[in-house]
Protein backbone atom coordinates (compact mmCIF):
# COMPACT_ATOMS: atom_id res chain seq x y z
CA UNK A 1 0.00 0.00 0.00
CA UNK A 2 1.07 3.56 -0.67
CA UNK A 3 0.16 6.53 1.51
CA UNK A 4 -0.49 4.41 4.55
CA UNK A 5 -1.80 6.53 7.42
CA UNK A 6 -1.23 4.08 10.22
CA UNK A 7 0.57 0.80 10.74
CA UNK A 8 -0.47 -1.35 13.68
CA UNK A 9 1.64 -4.29 14.74
CA UNK A 10 0.10 -6.87 17.05
CA UNK A 11 1.79 -9.79 18.69
CA UNK A 12 2.02 -12.12 21.61
CA UNK A 13 4.49 -14.78 22.69
CA UNK A 14 7.63 -14.57 20.57
CA UNK A 15 6.98 -11.21 18.97
CA UNK A 16 9.26 -9.00 21.03
CA UNK A 17 12.30 -10.58 19.38
CA UNK A 18 10.83 -9.80 15.99
CA UNK A 19 10.36 -6.14 16.88
CA UNK A 20 13.90 -5.93 18.18
CA UNK A 21 15.16 -7.24 14.84
CA UNK A 22 12.91 -5.11 12.66
CA UNK A 23 12.84 -1.69 14.34
CA UNK A 24 16.49 -0.73 13.65
CA UNK A 25 15.89 -0.95 9.90
CA UNK A 26 12.76 1.17 9.76
CA UNK A 27 13.41 4.50 8.01
CA UNK A 28 13.23 7.57 10.19
CA UNK A 29 11.27 9.45 7.55
CA UNK A 30 8.24 7.19 7.43
CA UNK A 31 5.13 9.30 6.99
CA UNK A 32 2.82 7.37 9.32
CA UNK A 33 2.65 6.37 12.97
CA UNK A 34 3.35 2.81 14.13
CA UNK A 35 1.21 1.48 16.94
CA UNK A 36 2.36 -1.62 18.77
CA UNK A 37 -0.03 -3.88 20.71
CA UNK A 38 1.75 -6.59 22.63
CA UNK A 39 0.31 -9.05 25.11
CA UNK A 40 2.31 -8.93 28.30
CA UNK A 41 2.20 -8.75 32.07
CA UNK A 42 0.75 -5.65 33.55
CA UNK A 43 2.97 -2.94 34.95
CA UNK A 44 5.86 -3.50 32.55
CA UNK A 45 5.19 -0.49 30.37
CA UNK A 46 8.24 1.67 30.83
CA UNK A 47 10.52 -1.34 30.45
CA UNK A 48 9.08 -2.10 27.05
CA UNK A 49 9.21 1.51 25.80
CA UNK A 50 12.77 1.84 27.05
CA UNK A 51 13.85 -1.38 25.40
CA UNK A 52 12.27 -0.54 22.06
CA UNK A 53 13.55 3.03 22.03
CA UNK A 54 17.12 1.72 22.07
CA UNK A 55 16.36 0.03 18.75
CA UNK A 56 15.25 3.03 16.69
CA UNK A 57 15.75 6.76 16.20
CA UNK A 58 12.02 7.25 15.90
CA UNK A 59 10.26 8.56 18.99
CA UNK A 60 8.94 5.69 21.08
CA UNK A 61 6.28 6.47 23.66
CA UNK A 62 3.32 5.01 25.46
CA UNK A 63 -0.01 5.86 23.84
CA UNK A 64 -1.87 8.34 26.06
CA UNK A 65 -5.59 8.98 26.11
CA UNK A 66 -6.77 11.96 24.00
CA UNK A 67 -3.33 12.31 22.48
CA UNK A 68 -3.00 13.38 18.83
CA UNK A 69 -1.57 10.58 16.76
CA UNK A 70 1.54 11.82 14.96
CA UNK A 71 3.57 10.35 12.10
CA UNK A 72 7.15 9.17 12.66
CA UNK A 73 6.20 8.05 16.14
CA UNK A 74 6.02 4.58 17.61
CA UNK A 75 3.24 4.23 20.17
CA UNK A 76 3.15 1.38 22.64
CA UNK A 77 -0.28 0.40 23.94
CA UNK A 78 -0.13 0.41 27.75
CA UNK A 79 -0.66 -2.85 29.59
CA UNK A 80 -4.08 -3.54 31.11
CA UNK A 81 -6.00 -1.10 28.86
CA UNK A 82 -7.52 -1.49 25.42
CA UNK A 83 -6.57 1.15 22.88
CA UNK A 84 -9.29 2.71 20.72
CA UNK A 85 -9.16 5.31 17.95
CA UNK A 86 -11.34 8.41 17.75
CA UNK A 87 -12.48 9.88 14.45
CA UNK A 88 -10.34 12.95 15.04
CA UNK A 89 -7.22 10.75 15.12
CA UNK A 90 -6.70 10.76 18.85
CA UNK A 91 -6.41 7.77 21.15
CA UNK A 92 -8.85 6.61 23.80
CA UNK A 93 -8.05 4.10 26.48
CA UNK A 94 -10.65 1.66 27.70
CA UNK A 95 -10.75 -0.57 30.75
CA UNK A 96 -13.54 -2.88 29.62
CA UNK A 97 -13.62 -6.67 29.81
CA UNK A 98 -10.69 -8.64 28.46
CA UNK A 99 -11.14 -9.91 24.92
CA UNK A 100 -9.56 -13.29 24.11
CA UNK A 101 -8.32 -13.27 27.71
CA UNK A 102 -6.29 -10.21 26.79
CA UNK A 103 -6.13 -6.55 27.69
CA UNK A 104 -4.86 -4.92 25.60
CA UNK A 105 -6.57 -7.00 22.96
CA UNK A 106 -5.20 -6.86 19.44
CA UNK A 107 -8.68 -7.45 17.98
CA UNK A 108 -10.06 -4.42 19.79
CA UNK A 109 -7.36 -2.11 18.47
CA UNK A 110 -7.41 -3.46 14.91
CA UNK A 111 -11.22 -3.20 14.77
CA UNK A 112 -11.32 0.31 16.12
CA UNK A 113 -8.59 1.47 13.73
CA UNK A 114 -10.29 -0.21 10.77
CA UNK A 115 -13.29 2.07 11.12
CA UNK A 116 -11.20 5.22 11.42
CA UNK A 117 -8.42 4.66 8.87
CA UNK A 118 -10.37 2.43 6.46
CA UNK A 119 -8.26 1.77 3.33
CA UNK A 120 -5.31 3.73 4.72
CA UNK A 121 -4.59 1.18 7.41
CA UNK A 122 -2.04 -1.60 7.45
CA UNK A 123 -2.07 -4.23 10.19
CA UNK A 124 0.66 -6.75 10.81
CA UNK A 125 0.23 -9.76 13.09
CA UNK A 126 3.27 -11.52 14.52
CA UNK A 127 4.06 -14.62 16.54
CA UNK A 128 1.71 -15.77 19.31
CA UNK A 129 -0.11 -18.61 20.95
CA UNK A 130 -3.72 -17.47 20.64
CA UNK A 131 -5.91 -16.04 17.92
CA UNK A 132 -6.33 -12.51 19.25
CA UNK A 133 -5.99 -10.19 16.26
CA UNK A 134 -7.47 -12.50 13.65
CA UNK A 135 -11.02 -11.10 13.84
CA UNK A 136 -9.47 -7.68 13.74
CA UNK A 137 -7.62 -8.50 10.53
CA UNK A 138 -10.86 -9.68 8.95
CA UNK A 139 -12.52 -6.39 9.78
CA UNK A 140 -9.54 -4.38 8.51
CA UNK A 141 -9.96 -6.17 5.19
CA UNK A 142 -13.68 -5.42 5.11
CA UNK A 143 -12.89 -1.73 5.46
CA UNK A 144 -10.37 -1.90 2.62
CA UNK A 145 -7.16 -1.96 4.63
CA UNK A 146 -4.16 -4.18 4.06
CA UNK A 147 -3.12 -7.05 6.32
CA UNK A 148 0.14 -8.86 6.68
CA UNK A 149 1.37 -11.64 8.95
CA UNK A 150 4.70 -12.98 10.01
CA UNK A 151 5.59 -16.13 8.08
CA UNK A 152 4.59 -18.86 10.56
CA UNK A 153 7.74 -20.77 9.65
CA UNK A 154 9.78 -17.95 11.14
CA UNK A 155 7.57 -17.50 14.22
CA UNK A 156 8.60 -18.73 17.66
CA UNK A 157 4.94 -19.60 18.19
CA UNK A 158 3.13 -20.10 14.90
CA UNK A 159 -0.48 -20.44 16.09
CA UNK A 160 -1.39 -16.78 15.73
CA UNK A 161 -0.07 -16.24 12.19
CA UNK A 162 -1.40 -19.62 11.12
CA UNK A 163 -4.89 -18.75 12.33
CA UNK A 164 -4.68 -15.45 10.48
CA UNK A 165 -3.73 -17.18 7.23
CA UNK A 166 -6.53 -19.72 7.68
CA UNK A 167 -9.27 -17.25 8.47
CA UNK A 168 -8.39 -13.85 7.09
CA UNK A 169 -7.67 -12.97 3.52
CA UNK A 170 -4.07 -12.03 4.21
CA UNK A 171 -2.25 -9.82 1.69
CA UNK A 172 1.32 -10.55 2.68
CA UNK A 173 3.17 -13.30 4.52
CA UNK A 174 6.49 -11.85 5.58
CA UNK A 175 9.79 -13.29 6.69
CA UNK A 176 11.30 -11.29 9.51
CA UNK A 177 14.17 -10.09 7.28
CA UNK A 178 11.71 -8.59 4.82
CA UNK A 179 9.46 -6.78 7.29
CA UNK A 180 11.39 -3.53 7.54
CA UNK A 181 11.55 -3.23 3.78
CA UNK A 182 7.80 -3.84 3.54
CA UNK A 183 7.15 -1.19 6.18
CA UNK A 184 9.46 1.39 4.59
CA UNK A 185 7.57 1.06 1.31
CA UNK A 186 4.23 1.97 2.88
CA UNK A 187 5.14 5.66 2.65
Amino acid at each position, binding site marked *: MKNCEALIIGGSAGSLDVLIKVLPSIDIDITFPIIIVLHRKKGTDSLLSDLLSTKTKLTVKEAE*EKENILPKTIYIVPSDYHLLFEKDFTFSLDYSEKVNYSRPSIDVTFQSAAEVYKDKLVCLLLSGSNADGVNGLIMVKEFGGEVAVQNPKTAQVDYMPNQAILRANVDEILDVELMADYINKLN
Partner: protein
Amino acid sequence: MSNLPSIDDEQVETLIDDVLDQYGYDFTGYSRASLKRRLNRLYSLDKQVSFAEFRYKIGSDSVYFKRFVEQITVNVTEMFRDPNFYKTLRDNVLPTLATYPFIRIWLAGCSTGEEAYSMAIVLKELNLLHKSLIYATDINPTVLEKAAQGMFPLSQMKQYSENYIASGGKADFSSYYSANYSLAKFDVDLKEKMIFSTHNLVSDHSFNEFQLILCRNVLIYFDRDLQFKVLQLFDNSLDNLGFLALGTKETTDFSPISKRYKRLEMEKIWRKTVNEKL
Protein backbone atom coordinates in the same frame (compact mmCIF):
# COMPACT_ATOMS: atom_id res chain seq x y z
CA MET B 1 -20.89 -13.79 9.14
CA SER B 2 -19.86 -10.25 8.50
CA ASN B 3 -17.63 -8.53 10.97
CA LEU B 4 -18.96 -5.11 10.14
CA PRO B 5 -20.39 -3.11 13.03
CA SER B 6 -24.17 -2.74 12.90
CA ILE B 7 -24.38 0.78 14.28
CA ASP B 8 -22.66 3.58 12.44
CA ASP B 9 -21.41 6.95 13.65
CA GLU B 10 -24.59 8.77 12.74
CA GLN B 11 -26.75 6.27 14.58
CA VAL B 12 -24.56 6.65 17.64
CA GLU B 13 -25.35 10.37 17.59
CA THR B 14 -29.05 9.66 17.13
CA LEU B 15 -29.11 7.46 20.22
CA ILE B 16 -27.15 9.99 22.27
CA ASP B 17 -29.70 12.67 21.32
CA ASP B 18 -32.68 10.41 22.07
CA VAL B 19 -31.40 9.46 25.48
CA LEU B 20 -30.74 13.07 26.39
CA ASP B 21 -34.22 14.15 25.22
CA GLN B 22 -36.16 11.32 26.76
CA TYR B 23 -34.29 10.49 29.94
CA GLY B 24 -32.05 13.49 30.59
CA TYR B 25 -28.90 11.36 30.55
CA ASP B 26 -26.19 13.32 28.81
CA PHE B 27 -23.61 11.20 27.01
CA THR B 28 -22.60 13.93 24.55
CA GLY B 29 -19.19 14.36 26.20
CA TYR B 30 -18.32 10.67 26.13
CA SER B 31 -15.62 9.10 23.99
CA ARG B 32 -17.32 8.02 20.78
CA ALA B 33 -14.95 5.14 20.11
CA SER B 34 -15.92 3.47 23.37
CA LEU B 35 -19.64 4.31 23.08
CA LYS B 36 -19.80 2.92 19.59
CA ARG B 37 -18.07 -0.25 20.62
CA ARG B 38 -20.39 -0.70 23.60
CA LEU B 39 -23.49 0.03 21.54
CA ASN B 40 -22.52 -2.52 18.93
CA ARG B 41 -21.77 -5.00 21.67
CA LEU B 42 -25.20 -4.49 23.23
CA TYR B 43 -26.88 -4.68 19.85
CA SER B 44 -25.39 -8.09 19.15
CA LEU B 45 -25.64 -9.38 22.74
CA ASP B 46 -29.37 -8.72 22.67
CA LYS B 47 -29.70 -10.06 19.15
CA GLN B 48 -31.26 -6.87 17.85
CA VAL B 49 -32.26 -7.07 14.23
CA SER B 50 -32.71 -3.50 13.14
CA PHE B 51 -31.55 -0.12 14.29
CA ALA B 52 -35.10 1.21 14.21
CA GLU B 53 -36.29 -1.44 16.67
CA PHE B 54 -33.26 -1.01 18.88
CA ARG B 55 -33.84 2.73 18.97
CA TYR B 56 -37.52 2.30 19.70
CA LYS B 57 -36.86 -0.14 22.53
CA ILE B 58 -34.35 2.19 24.18
CA GLY B 59 -36.71 5.13 23.84
CA SER B 60 -39.92 3.45 24.92
CA ASP B 61 -38.94 0.79 27.45
CA SER B 62 -37.52 2.23 30.65
CA VAL B 63 -36.49 -1.19 31.92
CA TYR B 64 -34.45 -1.68 28.79
CA PHE B 65 -33.03 1.80 29.17
CA LYS B 66 -31.67 0.73 32.54
CA ARG B 67 -29.89 -2.12 30.83
CA PHE B 68 -28.66 0.30 28.19
CA VAL B 69 -26.96 2.51 30.80
CA GLU B 70 -25.47 -0.55 32.49
CA GLN B 71 -24.08 -1.90 29.27
CA ILE B 72 -22.72 1.16 27.54
CA THR B 73 -20.79 2.26 30.59
CA VAL B 74 -17.84 0.08 31.53
CA ASN B 75 -18.04 -1.37 35.04
CA VAL B 76 -14.92 -3.49 35.20
CA THR B 77 -13.06 -3.04 38.47
CA GLU B 78 -10.86 -4.89 40.97
CA MET B 79 -9.89 -4.86 44.61
CA PHE B 80 -6.53 -3.25 45.28
CA ARG B 81 -6.12 -2.58 41.60
CA ASP B 82 -2.65 -1.09 41.04
CA PRO B 83 -1.14 -2.19 44.35
CA ASN B 84 1.40 0.63 44.34
CA PHE B 85 -1.41 3.13 44.34
CA TYR B 86 -2.88 1.61 47.51
CA LYS B 87 0.58 1.49 49.01
CA THR B 88 0.90 5.24 48.56
CA LEU B 89 -2.54 5.72 50.11
CA ARG B 90 -1.53 3.56 53.04
CA ASP B 91 1.96 4.95 53.61
CA ASN B 92 1.53 8.56 52.67
CA VAL B 93 -1.92 9.97 51.98
CA LEU B 94 -4.01 8.45 54.77
CA PRO B 95 -1.41 8.98 57.51
CA THR B 96 -1.44 12.66 56.49
CA LEU B 97 -5.20 12.74 56.89
CA ALA B 98 -5.01 10.87 60.19
CA THR B 99 -4.55 14.16 62.04
CA TYR B 100 -8.03 15.29 60.99
CA PRO B 101 -10.87 14.69 63.43
CA PHE B 102 -12.95 13.31 60.61
CA ILE B 103 -12.09 12.01 57.13
CA ARG B 104 -14.58 12.29 54.30
CA ILE B 105 -13.75 10.33 51.16
CA TRP B 106 -15.57 10.39 47.85
CA LEU B 107 -15.23 7.49 45.43
CA ALA B 108 -16.73 8.81 42.21
CA GLY B 109 -17.53 6.11 39.65
CA CYS B 110 -17.11 3.37 42.26
CA SER B 111 -18.78 0.70 40.11
CA THR B 112 -19.53 -2.52 42.03
CA GLY B 113 -17.63 -1.37 45.11
CA GLU B 114 -14.34 -3.28 45.04
CA GLU B 115 -12.54 0.03 45.46
CA ALA B 116 -14.69 0.99 48.46
CA TYR B 117 -13.98 -2.28 50.30
CA SER B 118 -10.29 -1.97 49.52
CA MET B 119 -10.31 1.54 50.95
CA ALA B 120 -12.19 0.40 54.05
CA ILE B 121 -9.66 -2.36 54.67
CA VAL B 122 -6.75 0.07 54.52
CA LEU B 123 -8.56 2.54 56.78
CA LYS B 124 -9.34 -0.20 59.24
CA GLU B 125 -5.74 -1.36 59.36
CA LEU B 126 -4.60 2.20 59.96
CA ASN B 127 -7.19 2.44 62.70
CA LEU B 128 -8.95 5.28 60.88
CA LEU B 129 -12.14 3.62 59.74
CA HIS B 130 -14.13 4.67 62.82
CA LYS B 131 -13.65 8.33 61.98
CA SER B 132 -14.01 8.06 58.21
CA LEU B 133 -16.96 8.22 55.90
CA ILE B 134 -16.77 6.79 52.39
CA TYR B 135 -19.25 8.22 49.90
CA ALA B 136 -19.34 5.78 47.00
CA THR B 137 -21.22 7.09 43.98
CA ASP B 138 -21.91 6.00 40.43
CA ILE B 139 -24.24 6.90 37.58
CA ASN B 140 -25.50 3.33 37.48
CA PRO B 141 -27.89 2.23 40.28
CA THR B 142 -27.42 -1.45 39.48
CA VAL B 143 -23.71 -1.46 40.30
CA LEU B 144 -24.44 0.39 43.54
CA GLU B 145 -26.88 -2.31 44.62
CA LYS B 146 -24.13 -4.85 44.10
CA ALA B 147 -21.66 -2.68 45.96
CA ALA B 148 -23.96 -2.46 48.95
CA GLN B 149 -24.08 -6.26 49.15
CA GLY B 150 -20.31 -6.52 49.42
CA MET B 151 -20.14 -9.91 47.76
CA PHE B 152 -17.58 -10.61 45.11
CA PRO B 153 -16.73 -13.77 43.18
CA LEU B 154 -14.68 -16.16 45.25
CA SER B 155 -12.70 -16.97 42.12
CA GLN B 156 -11.21 -13.46 42.22
CA MET B 157 -9.88 -13.73 45.76
CA LYS B 158 -6.53 -15.20 44.85
CA GLN B 159 -5.78 -12.24 42.61
CA TYR B 160 -7.13 -9.72 45.13
CA SER B 161 -5.13 -11.29 47.92
CA GLU B 162 -1.96 -10.95 45.83
CA ASN B 163 -2.84 -7.34 45.07
CA TYR B 164 -3.49 -6.71 48.76
CA ILE B 165 -0.13 -8.14 49.80
CA ALA B 166 1.67 -6.20 47.07
CA SER B 167 -0.02 -3.04 48.35
CA GLY B 168 1.55 -3.51 51.78
CA GLY B 169 -1.28 -5.41 53.48
CA LYS B 170 -0.02 -7.52 56.36
CA ALA B 171 -3.11 -9.35 57.53
CA ASP B 172 -4.51 -12.56 56.16
CA PHE B 173 -6.74 -11.27 53.35
CA SER B 174 -9.19 -14.13 53.79
CA SER B 175 -9.94 -12.91 57.30
CA TYR B 176 -11.98 -10.09 55.73
CA TYR B 177 -14.57 -12.31 54.10
CA SER B 178 -16.44 -15.54 54.52
CA ALA B 179 -16.97 -17.90 51.63
CA ASN B 180 -20.58 -18.32 50.66
CA TYR B 181 -20.91 -20.75 47.74
CA SER B 182 -19.15 -19.05 44.85
CA LEU B 183 -19.08 -15.66 46.59
CA ALA B 184 -16.86 -13.98 49.13
CA LYS B 185 -19.00 -11.98 51.54
CA PHE B 186 -17.04 -9.15 53.06
CA ASP B 187 -17.42 -8.31 56.75
CA VAL B 188 -20.33 -6.01 57.44
CA ASP B 189 -18.25 -3.74 59.65
CA LEU B 190 -16.29 -2.74 56.54
CA LYS B 191 -19.39 -1.20 55.03
CA GLU B 192 -20.63 0.53 58.15
CA LYS B 193 -18.89 3.69 57.04
CA MET B 194 -19.97 3.54 53.42
CA ILE B 195 -22.76 5.55 51.89
CA PHE B 196 -23.88 4.50 48.42
CA SER B 197 -25.69 6.94 46.22
CA THR B 198 -26.26 7.61 42.55
CA HIS B 199 -24.47 10.69 41.31
CA ASN B 200 -23.97 11.65 37.70
CA LEU B 201 -20.67 13.45 37.21
CA VAL B 202 -21.99 15.11 34.07
CA SER B 203 -25.07 16.76 35.53
CA ASP B 204 -25.01 16.57 39.34
CA HIS B 205 -23.37 19.10 41.61
CA SER B 206 -20.93 19.06 44.42
CA PHE B 207 -22.62 17.65 47.54
CA ASN B 208 -20.00 17.89 50.26
CA GLU B 209 -16.43 18.81 51.15
CA PHE B 210 -13.92 15.99 51.09
CA GLN B 211 -10.36 15.39 52.20
CA LEU B 212 -9.83 12.71 49.59
CA ILE B 213 -11.50 12.12 46.23
CA LEU B 214 -10.86 9.06 44.11
CA CYS B 215 -12.11 8.97 40.55
CA ARG B 216 -10.26 6.23 38.76
CA ASN B 217 -10.80 5.02 35.22
CA VAL B 218 -13.85 7.16 34.64
CA LEU B 219 -12.31 10.22 32.98
CA ILE B 220 -10.82 8.07 30.19
CA TYR B 221 -14.38 7.74 28.89
CA PHE B 222 -14.89 11.51 28.70
CA ASP B 223 -13.69 14.02 26.13
CA ARG B 224 -11.35 16.79 27.22
CA ASP B 225 -14.07 19.36 27.86
CA LEU B 226 -16.05 17.03 30.05
CA GLN B 227 -12.88 15.97 31.85
CA PHE B 228 -12.18 19.61 32.69
CA LYS B 229 -15.72 20.14 33.88
CA VAL B 230 -15.56 17.13 36.16
CA LEU B 231 -12.13 18.11 37.49
CA GLN B 232 -13.64 21.50 38.32
CA LEU B 233 -16.40 19.70 40.22
CA PHE B 234 -13.77 17.81 42.20
CA ASP B 235 -11.88 21.02 42.87
CA ASN B 236 -15.09 22.55 44.25
CA SER B 237 -15.61 19.50 46.45
CA LEU B 238 -12.12 19.20 47.87
CA ASP B 239 -10.78 20.85 51.02
CA ASN B 240 -7.61 22.82 50.84
CA LEU B 241 -4.75 20.37 51.22
CA GLY B 242 -7.11 17.57 50.21
CA PHE B 243 -6.03 14.82 47.83
CA LEU B 244 -7.34 13.94 44.39
CA ALA B 245 -6.56 10.50 42.97
CA LEU B 246 -7.12 9.47 39.36
CA GLY B 247 -6.53 6.28 37.38
CA THR B 248 -3.01 5.36 36.25
CA LYS B 249 -3.60 6.74 32.77
CA GLU B 250 -5.44 9.91 33.76
CA THR B 251 -4.10 13.34 34.63
CA THR B 252 -4.99 16.84 35.81
CA ASP B 253 -2.33 18.24 33.44
CA PHE B 254 -3.75 20.45 30.69
CA SER B 255 -6.78 21.28 32.86
CA PRO B 256 -7.42 24.72 34.36
CA ILE B 257 -7.28 23.34 37.91
CA SER B 258 -3.78 21.91 37.48
CA LYS B 259 -2.03 25.01 38.75
CA ARG B 260 -3.48 24.55 42.22
CA TYR B 261 -2.42 20.92 42.42
CA LYS B 262 0.91 19.37 43.27
CA ARG B 263 1.51 15.82 42.26
CA LEU B 264 2.80 13.20 44.68
CA GLU B 265 5.74 11.53 43.07
CA MET B 266 5.06 8.43 40.99
CA GLU B 267 1.34 7.95 41.60
CA LYS B 268 -1.60 9.75 40.00
CA ILE B 269 -2.38 11.56 43.23
CA TRP B 270 -2.41 15.32 43.54
CA ARG B 271 -2.65 17.53 46.60
CA LYS B 272 -4.58 20.75 46.53
CA THR B 273 -2.33 23.59 47.62
CA VAL B 274 -3.57 26.36 49.88
CA ASN B 275 -5.28 29.12 48.00
CA GLU B 276 -3.27 32.11 49.17
CA LYS B 277 -5.46 35.17 49.33
CA LEU B 278 -3.92 38.00 47.35
